């Protein structure tokens, strides 16, 4: 039976990480049908979550202009959105991870994203 299409929101301001994430999502998900939306900062992410059809997964960077990942996560949770939010950051110190989880993220994975990491994330949240 074919897996249903999934909608992923990638919140990331730097092009190199967007390119990496796009390739990792495509490799892990194994289909061209899945939708990968992009938001260039936390404020844009909050707007997209509010305005677009529900996402199945949100990949959230930490350090971004306008609004960072911690604040965006807090605001998305305050809207009552229960979509899994996975923090993706180059900073993997315990304090950074705790801050993200405390803001409402469900999981943390260090950059860079890979096919294997995305595969594990999709499996973890039942999206495979």
């Amino acid at each position, binding site marked *: 039976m074919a897996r249903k299409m999934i909608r992923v929101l990638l919140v990331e301001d730097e092009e*190199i990480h967007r*390119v990496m994430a796009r390739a990792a999502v495509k490799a892990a998900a194994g289909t061209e049908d899945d939708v990968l939306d992009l938001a260039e900062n936390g404020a844009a992410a909050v707007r997209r979550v509010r305005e677009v059809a529900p996402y199945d997964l949100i990949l959230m960077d930490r*350090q971004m202009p306008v609004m960072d990942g911690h604040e965006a996560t807090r605001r998305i949770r305050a809207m009552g959105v229960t979509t899994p939010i996975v923090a993706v950051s180059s900073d993997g110190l315990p304090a950074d991870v705790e801050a993200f989880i405390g803001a409402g993220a469900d999981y943390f994975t260090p950059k860079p994203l890979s096919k294997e990491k995305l595969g594990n994330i999709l499996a973890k949240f039942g999206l495979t």
Partner: protein
Amino acid sequence: MAAALTNQLHALVNNMFATGLLDDQFQQLQMLQDSSAPDFVSEVVTLFCDDGERIIGELARQLDKPNVDFDRVDSFAHQLKGSSASVGAQQVKNTCIQFREFCQQRSRDGCLKTLDLVRTEFYDLRNKFQVMLQVLPNVLKIHLTLSIEFH
């Protein structure tokens, strides 16, 4: 000629791994390249090279100010660390980690010394990447031609 070019490319990349310039992440990058994204490695490496040059310029400008904003310097070092990690630029990434420690210590001298080091390492790596990107299309073209001839 095909073998010579392929050998040249392999020798270059192997040397970059052996000398610690690159780590396993570069292999992960290569695994993400396929027929639907034949220029993926080239695209990511080019982004790294462009970002690195811009960030190093910014770091020099920030550290030249009479009152250094170490949080801003740290932010740029964090960016360079992240993009280095993405392409497997192990040496540059590790130097960025040191850089950030000097930012935490608010040490201009430490930051300046580390900036010199990261600049040298980055440009060495960039030069090697540029050779790789020049050779790679020719290798791919030759392999493609050979595979067509044998089918």
